């Protein structure tokens, strides 16, 4: 592990994670399907998880990995709630295109 990290360098992990994170952001911005947006957010979260793990290794500190578990658990909870809301939206709107959700404005 140490070798790999040393060989590749922590910077590249950060770049990768940032890239993934940005992909997630663009996904959220670009897509109009709520589920795809969820997935994009998941990509963002996972990018962070990747980063945390990388740093955990870099610092030789388990706390980062523990934190990843927290974050995964939270993300799961979040998605559970999110999907529940999505279901409610689907029932009322017969669709999950977020462009339908423009009633509250002004």
């Amino acid at each position: 592990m140490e070798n790999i990290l040393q060989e590749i360098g922590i910077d590249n992990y950060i770049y990768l994670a940032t890239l993934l994170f940005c992909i997630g952001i663009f996904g959220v911005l670009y897509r109009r399907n709520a589920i795809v947006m969820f997935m994009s957010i998941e990509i963002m979260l996972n990018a962070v998880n990747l980063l945390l793990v990388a740093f955990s290794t870099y610092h030789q500190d388990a706390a980062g990995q523990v934190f990843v578990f927290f974050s995964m658990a939270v993300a799961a909870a979040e998605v559970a709630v999110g999907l529940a809301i999505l279901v409610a939206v689907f029932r009322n709107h017969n669709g999950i295109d977020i462009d339908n959700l423009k009633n509250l404005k002004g």
Partner: protein
Amino acid sequence: METNLALLLLFAPFAGFLINIFFGKKISRTLSGTLGTIAVAVSFAVTVFFFLQVSSTKVPVMVDLFQWLTLQNFSVNFSFQLDQLSLLWLMFVTGIGTLIHVYSISYMHDDENINKFFAYLNLFIFFMITLVMGSNLLIMFIGWEGVGLCSYLLIGFWYKNQDYNDAAKKAFIMNRIGDLGFLIGIFILGYLFHTVEFTGMKSMIDNKWPINESLLGVAMLCLFIGACGKSAQIPLYTWLPDAMAGPTPVSALIHAATMVTAGIFMITRLNFLFNLTPDVLEIIAIVGAITSLVAASIGLVQNDIKKVLAYSTVSQLGLMFLALGLGAYEVAVFHVITHAFFKACLFLGSGSVIHALHGEQDMRNMGGLRKVMKITFITFLISTLAISGLPPLSGFFSKDEILLTAFHHNKPLWVIGSIASIMTAFYMFRLVYLTFYKDFRGTEEQKHHLHESPSLITFPLVVLAILAFFGGAISFPGMSWLNEYLAPVIAKPAVHEHLGTTEYILMGIAVAGAFLGIGLAYNKYISKGEVPPQDSEITGVAGVLYNKYYVDEIYTAIIVKPIYAIGSFFKNVTEVAISAFIFGLGKVAVLLGNEGKTIQNGSIGFYLLFFVLGVCSIIGYIFLVK
């Protein structure tokens, strides 16, 4: 004792005012009038007492009550001063006041508000006494404004007529213009002397207190403006003819005998200061002379009996100011006194005529009254002769002294004064002829009711006519009791020329001038029997004169109208603009809020885009912009 008596002198009319205003409705009309008269009579009696005392002891009576105003430089007390000058004034104020009160009992008997009338008259006397008795400029100012108020109330006594109210308002406002001058004068004097007491200022002058001459000049000029307002001099004279809207006794008392002479009183009172400012005196003389000429010329063609008298009053006041301006204060005072006698008599006489004609004031509708109203006629004639300046009546002496003084000091002013005198003789006799001679020109019904006035009206006429006849006795040229009496209060007596040839020639010229005026009037209205034409037919020079040189119109055009125009401008433009500007700030906020609503468009994608933009700009700002 003296204090109490002085207070009695002051407050007797005030008590009369209070009684009449609060209980006047409950007591009978005659009683109301009687109480009012008694109140003034009491003052008169006390005045006589003091007059005799001071004439003999030559020591003024001073009364100091309590502190009124406190300013940083000086304080002002309620204090009164009964010296020669004020007592002289009080004598004729309360004396003529009493007579006119008597007159009014009968004259106003049919008016339902007679109690108000007497209340106001008493109040007027009260304020007049305050004005005269005050020992400093501010107490004088109380009286000064107070008489203005009473004048306002009495001119507008018949308040149902808005024209009369307009006249009253005009009188008050024009007086106020003068009052502002008076106030400014007080400010400067207070600043210069650290006191506004007459005696205090005088002693400082006597002790050669260093004075800023130019500032003093401004102060004196301001005070003169005040005098102009009260005494109806150019340019503030136009209110006086309009003030004839008031009941005739009011015109006699306030607008002929007493209040309008307050300006002369004030200048005489401050003669020791005016003497220091010869430039201002010159202005006073010129203004006085011009006023006398202008007013006399207007008087030539007026047809309202009271208007003629009003312009005559303005003209005579002008002569008095002429005398003041020449430094002949005692001469001015002399003319004030004689003028008070004959002009009061003339007004009361005209009142008697109007009374007989049930309110008719237009001379074109009069005539032939001498047969019916003998007493009125005779007293009126005596006074007319007096005002025209025929010897040996009082007016001759006083007016002649003015002209004499003028001749010695300033020839052009003498010419002006003489012309004014000739005009006076003309229009006064025009008045007499049109009113009392020839045949009656009024309606049949009026003719039917013609009668001499009751004795309460004629009695004051007789008394005043006698005074008008003999009043000149107080100051014969060369052996003047008046000059001696006033010597303590007049710092620098005018040089009294010995009566020489020049003087006699001048007297002759004056008398001849008076006869010229009378003769012209006789020729026109008796020999030719002319009656002034109707208003619409008056044209040419007469038209200009008849319309008073259009001065009222000019004032309206250059002062009143612009003020209203500015008012409209403020109301319709400035106010709206300021309001709009301030509202505009609020409107801009609301507008921005409204615009902002379009950004808040409800789209999550858009919100997220903004979110990301926000992130980018923050990170960009913090990390890239250094």
